[in-house]
């Protein structure tokens, strides 16, 4: 506000930085310039005082957003032209009880069709017309997608529905090598999505939007040039109500410049004060707060399949573009996902739900696709699939790991999660587990099948816990490598039998514990050997029931 504060008293005239803008003032020594002119100039220290805008707004306007929103975006990504395969295309909307063309592509324009024309007239001009109807949901999604692309360039992105996006790029200029280079890169990214944007760069958001709507691609860095450059724009860029524009046209006011020349108070009285405020905002004389675009927390994508697919391999190929889109979404946010839900919608049967879980956050399409392939391979489809709906799990921060000097170790560290999730995708989540020691005297409670600690295997602390403590717990007594999940009763008594009479080698080792949690044990353990040479870990039950049991096998 400090910079725009001074010239605000003289609206309509070009913004000049000081009351006396004579050229001699610029050559004055620095202290005098600082005292006479703007506060900022002294800080800049430059002898040539150019009012530098604190903000630079880049407006993206999509003149054909209605048409572009209906394009299959996945195929548009590789730049292949979609709409030209079946002749001219128009999009229609219901207006005043009839179907009216609201957007049309280049071949349709060439045959004389213009927006606003009734559909019947358009069909009379071009009988081979392909007609689609508007889908507001997809138009909104398109704008979100553009905003997501814009967020790759700056954190401050604001929507100007239905067809505009504003980027505050002042802080990004140096990173992208200047305004021109930034605009070109943004244009390339949007064109890759099959869009044809109009870009305009000014210090004021509304002015940038007006220029872009008019199709005037300007790059203005100084606010004082705004009134002169805005003046020739047609008033239609303001999107004021049609009644107001008509009333102004009858007064002979057709361009923005005409409007600026009208007396300020009279204009505000005759028309709405809001319009006057908008003019001030376009000139940068009134604050114009813009809400920041907040990206969706989850990625939800849907693709209708035509024709319906029953073949798994083709279904997988149809889903892959969605995964690419998902990963582009994740990349734009520096995020990753740990789970993913896929719904395969059928015509009659309830939707088939596939839930993918990853062992670590992922943001790579190839890895998700590999996992999906395993899941699809063991999925039975009740009916052909009509549509696919993809919903990402909550986003987590993507972990970019620093490279390591020794390639082999890095390969191993990254390969474990992939192996685990691959096995789990095919065999089920419970089929893969790790081991974990528990300090406990009862043999069956001394371990549990733990989760797999993906990050920690290389840490020395963990290695110490695995070996050192384990030794400490069972100092001298032998423990079998295999422990039966449930002790198996043995025949016979003194000596018990298991594939022949057992020969007791060691024992007894008495274990009495666990009275506090209901599953107490009172057992005498022995090491015994079968006639075949297998060493077993058996125990004699010391509670009332008695009897011998096999509990483990020494490997």
């Amino acid at each position, binding site marked *: 506000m400090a910079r725009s504060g001074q010239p605000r008293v003289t609206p309509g005239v070009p913004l000049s930085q000081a009351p006396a803008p004579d050229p001699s003032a610029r050559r004055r020594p620095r202290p005098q310039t600082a005292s006479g002119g703007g506060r900022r100039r002294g800080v800049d220290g430059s002898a040539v005082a150019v009012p530098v805008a604190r903000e630079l707004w880049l407006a993206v306007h999509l003149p054909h957003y209605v048409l572009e929103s209906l394009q299959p975006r996945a195929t548009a990504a590789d730049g292949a032209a979609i709409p030209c395969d079946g002749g001219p295309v128009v999009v229609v909307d219901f207006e005043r009880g009839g179907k009216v063309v609201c957007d049309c592509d280049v071949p349709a324009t060439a045959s004389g069709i213009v927006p606003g024309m009734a559909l019947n007239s358009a069909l009379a001009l071009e009988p081979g017309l392909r007609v689609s109807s508007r889908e507001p949901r997809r138009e909104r999604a398109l704008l979100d997608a553009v905003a997501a692309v814009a967020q790759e360039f700056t954190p401050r992105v604001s929507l100007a529905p239905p067809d505009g996006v504003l980027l505050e790029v002042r802080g990004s200029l140096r990173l992208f090598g200047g305004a021109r280079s930034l605009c070109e890169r943004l244009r390339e990214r949007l064109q890759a999505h099959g869009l044809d944007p109009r870009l305009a760069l000014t210090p004021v958001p509304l002015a940038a939007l007006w220029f872009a709507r008019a199709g005037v691609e300007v790059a203005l860095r100084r606010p004082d040039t705004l009134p002169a450059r805005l003046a020739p724009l047609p008033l239609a860029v303001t999107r004021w109500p049609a009644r107001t524009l008509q009333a102004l046209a009858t007064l002979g006011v057709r361009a923005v410049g005409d409007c600026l020349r009208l007396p300020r108070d009279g204009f505000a009285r005759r028309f709405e004060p809001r319009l006057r405020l908008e003019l001030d905002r376009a000139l940068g004389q009134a604050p114009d707060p813009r809400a920041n675009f907040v990206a969706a927390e989850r990625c939800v994508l849907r693709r209708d399949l035509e024709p319906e697919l029953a073949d798994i391999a083709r279904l997988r190929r149809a889903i892959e573009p969605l995964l690419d889109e998902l990963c582009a979404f994740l990349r734009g946010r520096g995020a990753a996902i740990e789970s993913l839900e896929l719904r395969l919608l059928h015509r009659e049967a309830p939707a088939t739900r596939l839930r993918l879980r990853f062992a670590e956050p992922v943001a790579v399409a190839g890895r998700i696709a590999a996992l999906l392939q395993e899941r699809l391979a063991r999925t039975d489809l009740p009916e052909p699939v009509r549509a696919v709906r993809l919903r990402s799990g909550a986003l987590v921060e993507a972990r970019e790991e620093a490279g390591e000097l020794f390639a082999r170790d890095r390969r191993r560290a990254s390969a474990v999660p992939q192996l685990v999730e691959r*096995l789990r995708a095919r065999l089920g989540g419970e089929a893969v587990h790790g*081991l974990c*020691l528990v300090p406990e005297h009862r043999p069956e409670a001394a371990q549990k099948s733990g989760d797999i600690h993906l990050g920690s295997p290389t840490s020395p602390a963990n290695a110490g816990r695995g070996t050192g403590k384990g030794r400490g717990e069972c100092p001298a007594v032998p423990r079998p490598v295999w422990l039966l999940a449930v002790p198996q009763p043995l025949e016979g008594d003194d000596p018990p039998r298991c594939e022949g009479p057992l020969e007791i080698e060691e024992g007894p080792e008495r274990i009495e514990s666990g009275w506090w949690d209901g599953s107490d044990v009172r057992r005498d353990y022995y090491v015994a050997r079968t006639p*075949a040479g297998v060493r077993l870990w058996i125990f004699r039950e010391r509670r009332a029931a008695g009897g011998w049991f096999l509990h483990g096998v020494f*490997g």
Partner: protein
Amino acid sequence: MSLDELLRHPALWRARGPGEAAGRPGLPTGFAALDRCLPGGGWPSRGLVEILADHTGIGELSLLLPALARLCAEGHEAGWLAWVSPPHPPYAPALAACGIDVGRVLVVRAPPAEWAMEQALRSGACSAVLGWAACRDRQSLRRLQLAAEQSDCLAVLFRRLRNGSEPSPAVLRIALASGRDGLEVRILKSRGGRAASVRLGWIDAASPAQAH
């Protein structure tokens, strides 16, 4: 053409000769008598090892535990130990007592163990893969051997003794039997080595150090 040149022909493989010295050193088994019979002085670090035994618990795992402990002791370099469809749940305290880092053990319960074994071998995440599978068709056995050949890890497949009569692409095949005074190890096939028979005393899984 001299004889030396002929012998250097890549299609020619010699059971004992200069090629053996250049071969990869094996992973010491922890049993000196067994090491002496194996070509690289230990378990082959590439290629499939088959251990044939008719009884679980005869000592087949005790034979491997020192090598597994050695793999865990590699510290920072060590990979994971995958146990694919073991006959019983492995018991962590016993493994820990042998010096195996149980935090690195991966237990996979997969009815078709061959597929999971192959995945584990190909992933490059493991330093040892132990699998219990019948491997009825030779195709899957060959795939396993190929995967083991390409990965840098100890691949061991446990099968029944009767499979010993069937041909197998494995690099090393060992049949285990218990004699009167200990474990009898018969080397049925050893690439670069020769068939042999070693008699080891009773191996106590809990204290592998005695075998040195």
